[in-house]
Each structure stands twice: as structure tokens, then as C-alpha cells.
């Protein structure tokens, strides 16, 4: 028996201990996803794969109205292209309600929530998408951005590591990660990308001076009296 086997057995044993406390399927799925993130952050390939397989065993919700879901999904994508985020959000919610097992709809929902800055909602939606399809690299990437915006370095690193792991084109994913590691203004995301690349022993150069934010957030001059203000 190899060490991977015993590691997997330990994971199952740990799961058996935790599982009774998880009352609902969604809780259980979230637990698996968090495990995938944690294990990816420490480059535990066997553990990530084990949790992925557990997720794949979970029952998927049946569609209620697949045709309506498809129509709503298309409507949402058109609204997204037109940058109408509120319309897109409504449409993707409808698509998800009509077909709760449609990972595409839930993934788009997470994307819109993130764009709207609703990070807890975005995290929930993206975790739902990943519960339906644990190998969806784009959902891992979105989730990494949510964690980056939440300044959660460890989880951003784990999610980015899974982005690379499940990417259809690893060279493209590698270049995306390098781009973030060298050009991203957010410290958390930049550092997470750097660490994710190093987990996979991929070449990258750490920046000395971090890139400046694209939008520095210039504000109007305040009117409060201040005889000496240091810029």
C-alpha cells in the first residue's frame, strides 16, 4: 500500500467524523470544496483528488424546467455582454431556479455577484457551481478572485492552484497566473498567484515594486479646515 492510499483512508476517516455534523447536502459540498482548497494550498494532490471524487458522488438536483432555464441562461449571457449586470443577475437566478443542477447558470450567477461586489453571495454561488462540477477551472478562478478581494491569501492560493490543476490548457493557465503574479495591484491575489505557481514549480518573477491600481480612486478635495495637511 502506498502513502497516498493511507492518506486517502485518513481523509475518509476524518470525513466520517465530521459528516454527522453536516445536516444538509449543501453543507457537505461546501465542506468538500473547502477541503479541496485547503489541500490544494498545500499541494496535496491526492487529497484534492479524493475530495473531488467525494463531490462527484453527491446527488445532483433534478431540473424543473430545462427549456426555461436555457432561455434564461441565454438572456443572462446577452445582458452580461451588454454589461447590464442587474438584468444578467435576474436572468441567471431564473436559470438556476429552473435548473438547479446547471453549473453554467450557477457559475454565471457567482460571476455577476462578484462583479457587483457581493462577495458572500458570490462565494456561495461559486461553491454551488463547483459542487455540481468540481473540475470547472473558471469557477475556481472566480472563487480565487472572491478570496483575493476578501484578503484571504491561503484560500485564494488554494483556489488558484485548483484553477491551474483543472485548466484545459495548462500553459494558458500558467500565463494567466504569471500575469496576476506580476501585474495585479491587489497584494493578496498577486501573492496567491506567485505562491500557486511556486507550488507547481513553475517559473515566475516576484515584483519588487507592486503595480499601481488602475483606478486610484481620486476623491474631491475635502472642505474641512486643515491648516497643514501632509499629502
Amino acid at each position, binding site marked *: 500500500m502506498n502513502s497516498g492510499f493511507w492518506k486517502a483512508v485518513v481523509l475518509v476517516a476524518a470525513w*466520517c467524523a465530521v459528516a454527522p455534523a453536516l445536516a444538509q447536502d449543501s453543507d457537505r459540498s461546501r465542506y468538500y470544496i473547502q477541503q479541496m482548497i485547503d489541500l490544494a494550498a498545500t499541494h496535496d494532490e491526492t487529497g484534492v483528488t479524493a475530495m473531488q471524487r467525494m463531490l462527484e458522488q453527491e446527488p445532483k438536483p433534478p431540473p424543473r424546467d430545462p427549456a426555461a432555464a436555457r432561455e434564461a441562461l441565454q438572456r443572462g449571457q446577452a445582458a452580461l455582454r451588454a454589461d447590464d449586470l442587474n438584468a444578467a443577475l435576474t436572468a441567471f437566478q431564473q436559470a438556476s431556479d429552473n435548473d438547479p443542477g446547471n453549473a453554467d447558470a450557477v457559475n454565471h450567477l457567482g460571476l455577476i455577484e462578484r462583479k457587483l461586489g457581493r462577495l458572500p453571495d458570490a462565494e456561495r454561488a461559486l461553491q454551488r457551481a463547483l459542487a455540481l462540477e468540481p473540475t470547472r477551472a473558471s469557477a475556481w478562478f472566480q472563487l480565487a478572485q472572491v478570496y483575493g478581494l476578501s484578503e484571504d491569501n491561503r484560500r485564494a492560493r488554494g483556489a488558484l492552484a485548483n484553477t491551474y*490543476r483543472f485548466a*484545459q490548457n495548462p500553459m*494558458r493557465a*500558467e500565463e494567466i497566473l504569471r500575469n496576476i503574479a506580476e*501585474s495585479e495591484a491587489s497584494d493578496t491575489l498577486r501573492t496567491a498567484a506567485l505562491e500557486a505557481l511556486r507550488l507547481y514549480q513553475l517559473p515566475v518573477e516576484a515584483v519588487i515594486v*507592486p503595480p*499601481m491600481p488602475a483606478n486610484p480612486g481620486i476623491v474631491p478635495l475635502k*472642505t474641512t479646515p486643515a491648516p497643514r495637511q501632509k*499629502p
Partner: protein
Amino acid sequence: MIHRFAPLALLALLALLALLAGPLPASAGQYETLDYHIQQMIAQAAANDEAGVQTFREQLDNLRRPEAGDPVQSRPLFQQGQEYLNHDQLKEALSAFRQAFITDPADAEIAGQLGLTYLRLRRMKEAERLLVYALALAPARSASWLHLGQVYGQSGDTARAAGAFANAYRFAPDRSRLAGQLRQLATTDPADAVRAGAQRALQPTQPLPTPTAKPGSAANLPPPTASAPVPAQPAAPAPTAPTITDPAPSSTPPASGVLLDSLRRGLSSLAKPADTAPPAAGSRSIPTAGEQPGQQIYRSSLPRTCLIVTFRRGKTDSLGSGLLVSADGLVVTNHHVIENADNLAVKCGERESVARVSRRSKEPDLALLTTTLNRAESFVLNEAYSPDLIGLEVFVIGNPYGLEGTFSTGVISGLREIDGVRYFQISAPISPGNSGGPVILRDGSVIGIATMGLKKGQNLNFAIAAAELIHSGLFDPARMKMSTAQGKGR
């Protein structure tokens, strides 16, 4: 509850057992597969095994192709990257080619040019990966073989350089031109293994396909010509000897033109890492006929003006401005810019360095930083401070809110002494992030250090007089350039 989950646990255990015997995910090892085939093509080429090269090329052709992206979006980015590359703006080229590659990762030309950009940035590992990937997409792309050969040569691997160069020749659409490029590499490249690899690929004793034959048939390369002889043993050229980084132009220009062009490109490819490279912006400081004084000041000041980023508990904390005041990389800024920092980084023009606080003073609000920016162009400090200066035009350059290199202008509005420190009151707009940046007269000398502003009112800003810096004892005046000129009519 335990009963409810027990069957699931059993299922999970079974799934795990199946998993442990199962295959790796589809993406794992993808690059290794491509690299294996490319390395085989190199090895077969080095052994002059025609059939072997062909076999592995066909195997590569049979591998699953990456999903195509969007050429409509990627091509303009590619053209932009080419423009930057032609002008040796390598960081900008990298950014443009990266975006193009992310948009369409199935375009071998984009991947190849991204690899070339990494090569010119001397990032050999990234260059190798991208060029291997580009060749997996298009195994007969001669330019990528040539660049991959240079990567191996610059990494000291003569054998692989020779094999890659041999494939560059094998697949070249214009073999005489490629042979010329190899001869140039064999004679002038500063890296021993590049010269040796190119020379080995040119060896007439090791037959390679004839120029007339279709790729894949055996023949010799043309021998070195009298005008570009290949030495029996490669002689080490001067460190500034040229390196070919691009395919040569299709029509051969005069020898001196080739040398100059090649030298220019070679110098660029020899660029040092970011913290030691000569300032790219320095070349922009040469005044151009017809320029306004402000434009000249901006061009000459930009590479000497610094962005200062402070870090606290491992994260970016704040930013400010600074100015280079000595040729050995001393940077002056305000004390309040750096006072809470655990670590510091500076970027002056295009050059970056970590920094350390050498001296600091709260009154006057100044700090001196040491950096690794040697051979820096520094500002001349002007110690003039008199009412005669009021009304003179001043220029301010800095990084307000992170807007790097922001240039503004105004006049000296007055002289103020605050808590015993001499200040110039200036009308040039400054904002948070300008702190520590230079206030410059028309002659290019620095009259003050932008420090603070009065938010009540408009353009009521203050710069510590350079005279305070000169006499502060922060550093040895012998290390800085000084002037007492009034900045009039210059």
C-alpha cells in the same frame, strides 16, 4: 445520524480506492508530453537522424490541439506586441503578447513571440516553456527553433542548442538566410554555448538537408562564406558583441548596417535584470528640437524621479515620491512617506530596487534611502532661497494616488518658514502620493521637495527648500550635485 452517513462513507471509501488506481487528470503532465516530443526532435536532429525527426514531428501533429481562442481580439494585441518589441520596449511587449496569448492560446506565432520576448528579457525558463509550446503547435516554425536554440545556448547547453539550430535550418523557408543567421551567431554571440551550438549546426562534416530538398531529406548546410568565416575554435567576443534575437531582414543590408542593427538588438537582449538595467527612460531625456521647456524637463526628470512603495506586515501600505540625488543610487523623500514602513521598494524611471532607510529626520521632514540603482542619473540640487525666486515657473513630477509620472506646473508663490524650516509655497498642484517628489526649475535643478498642502483654498502647496536638504547633514554633500543658479532664462 451515524447510520444515515455510514453507507455514504462506504461509498466514499470505494470511490477513493477506485481513484487511487485511476489515471491522472487530463491536464496533468501536458507540457511534459509536448516537451518530450520536442526534446526527441532535438536529439534526433543533433544525431542527424532525419527519419527520427520526422517521426516525432508526426507524433506531435497527432496530439490533441488546444482549443482555439478569439483571433479577432488577439491579433490587434499581437500587432501591438510586435510594435513594442521592435522598439525594445520589452515589458510592454510582454504585457501585450501575454494578453494575446491568453486570448488565443492556439496561435503558434503569438506563443513564439511571447517566448522570444521572455528570451530577450533573459527569462530563460519561461522562454523555453513558451517556445516548446509554440513548436508543439507548429513543429516546422523555424524562428521558434532558432530562438529555442538561443535559450539552450544561453543556458550553457551546447548539444541542445545545436539540435534546435539544426531544426531551425531544416524547417527554414529561406535556408540561405537562416545559414547567415547561424553564421552570425557562431561568430558574434557572447554566449559560448550559442556560438558552439551554431557552429556545430553549421559543420559541413555533419550532413543536413540540402536547400533544394523538401524538409526532411538529408543534405549539407552551405559552408561558411569568406565574408563571414567560422573560426575553428570560437573566440570569445567582447561582452557587447551582438546577438541575433530576430530573423534578419529578407534583403541583406550593408555589413555595417547589419552590425549596427544587430548591436542595438544585442545590447537590448543583454539587458540586466530590472534592478541593474540601464534606465530605458534615460534615452528619452535628450532634448528634441522644437520641444517646449516643460517637455524637456519632463523627459529629463522622469528617470530620476522615483515611486516609493512602503510595505507593512507584508502588504502594500502607502506610496509616495522621491528623487535620485547621487550616482550611486541615493534617493531622497519625505520622512512621513516612510515612517511606518517595514520594507521599502523604489522605482525610478523603469528601474526597480528594494530600499533601506539610511538617514531620517522629522524636522525637516526628510529621509535618505539607499538603493541598488548604481550608475543613476541624478538631479542637481539648487540651494537658492530668496525673494527673487518668487514668480519663477516650477515643475512638479510625482505619483499622486499612484498615477505614476504625473507632471504639473505652477509658480513659486512665496517663501514660508514653518517651525524653523524653510519652504517654498508653490501653486503647482500636488496631491497625496506627490510627497517627497522634486520641484524643478526651468534649468532642471531641484529647488524643493514637495511635502504638504493646504486643503482649504486652492493650490496652496509647500515644498521643503533644497537648501534645507543640502544643509541637513543627511548625507555627504560631496556625493550630490549642487547649484546656486536662480533658474532664470535657462
